[in-house]
């Protein structure tokens, strides 16, 4: 399996360092464009359509098929808004926060194997510490939230930022502990190895081979990871840093125009990054029958997106004190149990 920069380098007939740099730059642009296209589809259109379906409304339906064309007027509308800089904001922290949130979420996709479409393999880089890299990059976003909360000079923003910290403290450890329990099965932190480990057959049911996806092997870990991931990306029922009915919009209260777009974009890319992580370490990555791997990968991340939107429509928000209790008394204990359980399963399988 060759990575995307190498393939582009070969295609252009380059070798050595220029191949790595030019191939890498084109590859990175392709990956970035794929993610942006997904976020553009999700933010102005899919989110509205899904919420409308849950609440029995019609939503956007005028431009293009099923109203998909709304993306273009919406993008122009949002970008052409006046940027209002409130009094007393702490610059440049106030300007950097949206940049950090949008960039960090995009960067996480560097190590995600997105499967192949025809001859092209969508996988930018495959370092040996792939899984740790994703966790590290994904948690940079909370720095952006705190910066936004503090720099806005707004009491709602400050409370939103403080809540974001409390939430991340409560969920980061269960998320990592459950995530690395997968490594016990796979024996490697490299994303391609984790995907390869899930390609083995677990049991054969007649003509159908059930693959060794870690979600099937250890459903307990899968459920824990889903819950911790929803809190990590700050969606319902854990959207308390924003909590529109309590603290206006939390950390993004004072942001308008392009900065608001960047927050919005960052949030959606972050949901997709969470989905990509779930797909890669629990759902066999881009594996699936008949359809090409890249299509299966998109189906899986959109399934996770649909799940977050379903929860958004169906579940009430928890209180911050409840969240701390769920995180530290529920998920953390669950994560430790899962670690023992997984080690036990692997030990039994090895014997």
């Amino acid at each position, binding site marked *: 399996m060759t990575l995307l920069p190498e393939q582009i380098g070969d295609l252009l007939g380059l070798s050595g360092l220029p191949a790595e740099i030019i191939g890498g730059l084109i590859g990175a642009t392709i*990956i970035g464009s794929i993610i942006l296209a997904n976020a553009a589809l999700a933010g102005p259109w899919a989110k509205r359509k899904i919420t409308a379906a849950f609440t029995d409304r019609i939503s956007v339906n005028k431009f293009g098929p099923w109203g998909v064309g709304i993306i273009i007027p919406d993008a122009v509308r949002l970008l*052409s808004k006046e940027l209002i800089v409130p009094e007393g904001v702490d610059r440049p922290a106030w300007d950097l926060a949206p940049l950090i949130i949008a960039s960090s979420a995009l960067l996480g996709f560097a190590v995600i194997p997105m499967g192949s479409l025809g001859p092209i393999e969508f996988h930018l880089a495959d370092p040996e510490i792939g899984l740790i890299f994703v966790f590290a990059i994904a948690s940079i976003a909370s720095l952006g939230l705190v910066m936004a909360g503090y720099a806005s000079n707004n009491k709602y923003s400050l409370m939103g930022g*403080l809540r974001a910290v409390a939430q991340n403290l409560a969920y980061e*450890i269960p998320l*990592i502990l459950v995530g690395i329990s997968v490594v016990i099965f796979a024996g490697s932190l490299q994303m391609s190895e984790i995907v390869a480990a899930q390609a083995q057959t677990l049991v054969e049911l007649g003509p159908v081979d059930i693959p060794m996806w870690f979600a099937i092997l250890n459903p307990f870990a899968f459920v824990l990871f889903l819950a911790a991931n929803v809190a990590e990306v700050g969606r319902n029922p854990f959207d308390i840093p924003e909590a529109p009915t309590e603290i206006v919009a939390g950390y993004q209260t*004072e942001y308008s125009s*392009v900065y608001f777009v960047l927050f919005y974009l960052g949030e959606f890319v972050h949901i997709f990054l969470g989905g990509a992580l779930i797909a890669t370490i629990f759902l066999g990555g881009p594996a699936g029958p008949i359809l090409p791997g890249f299509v299966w990968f998109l189906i899986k991340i959109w399934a996770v997106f649909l799940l977050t939107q379903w929860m958004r429509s169906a579940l009430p928000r928890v209180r911050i004190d409840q969240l*701390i209790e769920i995180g530290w008394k529920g998920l953390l204990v669950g994560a430790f149990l899962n670690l023992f359980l997984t080690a036990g399963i692997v030990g039994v399988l090895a014997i």
Partner: protein
Amino acid sequence: MSDWIAIGLLAVVAIAIPITMMVVSWLIRPSVPEQGKRATYESGEIPTGSSRTVRFNIQYYMVALLFVVFDVEAVFVIPWTVIFEEAVGEVGFVQAFAPMALFLVILLIGLAWAWRKGAVEWAKSPRANRQLID
């Protein structure tokens, strides 16, 4: 090495995309400066004071201290998970599992102690309690 070049280049692209959006927006957006609209939003009221002078209760302070302990612990667990399966094959399940189990149990005892002390809870502010009594 080429992996990290590619990751670095994605970082460049990931920063270039928001900056491009900022530049496009800067080119097409209007600017109508006006004193009133720059006021901090406080639900339509005239804002009182700065948010930097507000004194707030960090109600998750104890949780934040615990977080450091468990975060460091996660760093120690990661290498063990990578070699665990191999180690089971070489030295047997008990040899591979017992040391880490002991380590985790010690941490869990610590968590149980913190739990009993009420450290893993959203601390109620004294003022909120006083209002309850009133």
